């Protein structure tokens, strides 16, 4: 065993050998898959509670109809959030083509629209007319939309770092990983909002 270890060391000189990595799944892909799986389980638990509550309720007036949700305002907010994904995509495509102004403009617009979404949601919470402790529907409504809002906040934090770095001259057509990762996260947050908005507000 010692002879074998010495042989390995001699082969690599003073440097440690490259980390062994299974070729079945690339590490970054595996990491993203695990992250998404954990997020799906997190949101999934709340959706399960929501649908269970809707199916087993024995109210004369369904829970869903007892609360007047701001469907129109939330629809406008959804459009804002979806548009922010377009500007995020534009920002990344811009830096890939060497267009620094496009990157900066895209990131600023994405950040501002994300902030608008979050502030609008907070504003709606204040005016919605029911509180989390009122009943089961109210609890699950605030949990699901609040959990999503938390994700938007994390996304805005990542975007703030990316935007600051963009104005400091970071990123290039070859190196833009610092924009790519927040971009992936931002689109994931938008996907989750589509599911939340459709199930809670529309259906």
């Amino acid at each position, binding site marked *: 065993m010692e002879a074998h270890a010495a042989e390995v060391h001699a082969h690599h000189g003073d440097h440690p050998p*490259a980390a062994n990595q299974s070729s079945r799944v690339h590490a970054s892909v595996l990491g993203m898959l695990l992250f998404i799986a954990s997020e799906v389980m997190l949101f999934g638990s709340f959706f399960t509670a929501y649908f269970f509550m809707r199916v087993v309720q024995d109210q004369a007036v369904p829970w869903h109809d007892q609360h007047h949700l701001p469907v129109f305002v939330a629809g406008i907010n959804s459009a804002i959030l979806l548009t922010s994904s377009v500007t995020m995509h534009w920002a990344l495509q811009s830096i890939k083509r060497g267009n620094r102004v496009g990157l900066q403009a895209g990131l600023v617009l994405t950040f501002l629209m994300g902030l608008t979404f979050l502030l609008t949601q907070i504003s709606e919470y204040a005016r919605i007319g029911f509180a989390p402790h009122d009943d089961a529907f109210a609890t699950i409504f605030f949990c699901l939309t609040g959990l999503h809002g938390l994700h938007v906040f994390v996304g805005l934090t990542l975007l703030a770092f990316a935007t600051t770095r963009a104005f400091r001259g970071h990123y290039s057509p070859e190196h833009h990983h610092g924009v790519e990762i927040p971009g*992936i996260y931002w689109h994931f947050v938008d996907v989750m909002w*589509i599911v939340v908005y*459709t199930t809670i507000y529309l259906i």
Partner: protein
Amino acid sequence: MENPFRSEAAAFQFLLVTVGAFALITIAAVLNTWAGVAVFVVLTVAAIGYYLHQRGQPAPRREVPHWGEPDEKRILVVANETVAGQGLLEEIRRATSSGRAQVLVVSPALNSPLRHWVSDEDGARASAQARLDQSLQRLGELGVAARGEIGDSDPLQAIEDELRTFGPDAVIISTHPEGRSNWLERGIVDEARARFDVPITHVVVDLEAEAEQA
């Protein structure tokens, strides 16, 4: 399967597909609740089928640099139940007859799926070790100096592990004949040739025929 969040562009595309899918579900649900459920189920099944049948970019072949002295040949032998087969022993002797050679015999500890998932591999490792000892003794009698190791239960993973720590110039994979070989059925030899940039020899060992001849 390709991860829909593997890049920003892929994630953006996935978002657009999600918007379209949920628009269809909403329209169907507004018309009739069960229609909405049906559209949801159909789209979900279609999406799962689409992603499962996608093929990602094949990984580049792993290069294996030469280890040890320039005139020394390193041979990795991967075999389990056929590790003591006469055909394999002859192939090893032929491969090592041209000069200095180091031989490493790896015997993957094959296990049942249930035992694998509950980490009950003691029996599989003991069986693999017994066959390995028998094979090393037989190689010693033929004048071939070899050492052995128990490898991962996945033969491809076992090869990859040894490429990292042994650096073979050639790999010999021994299997049962076509029809009785689980490894051949799984395409292990072809997969190994596609994945690793090292000469790979496939040896078929028919233990039943050898037993009849003996």
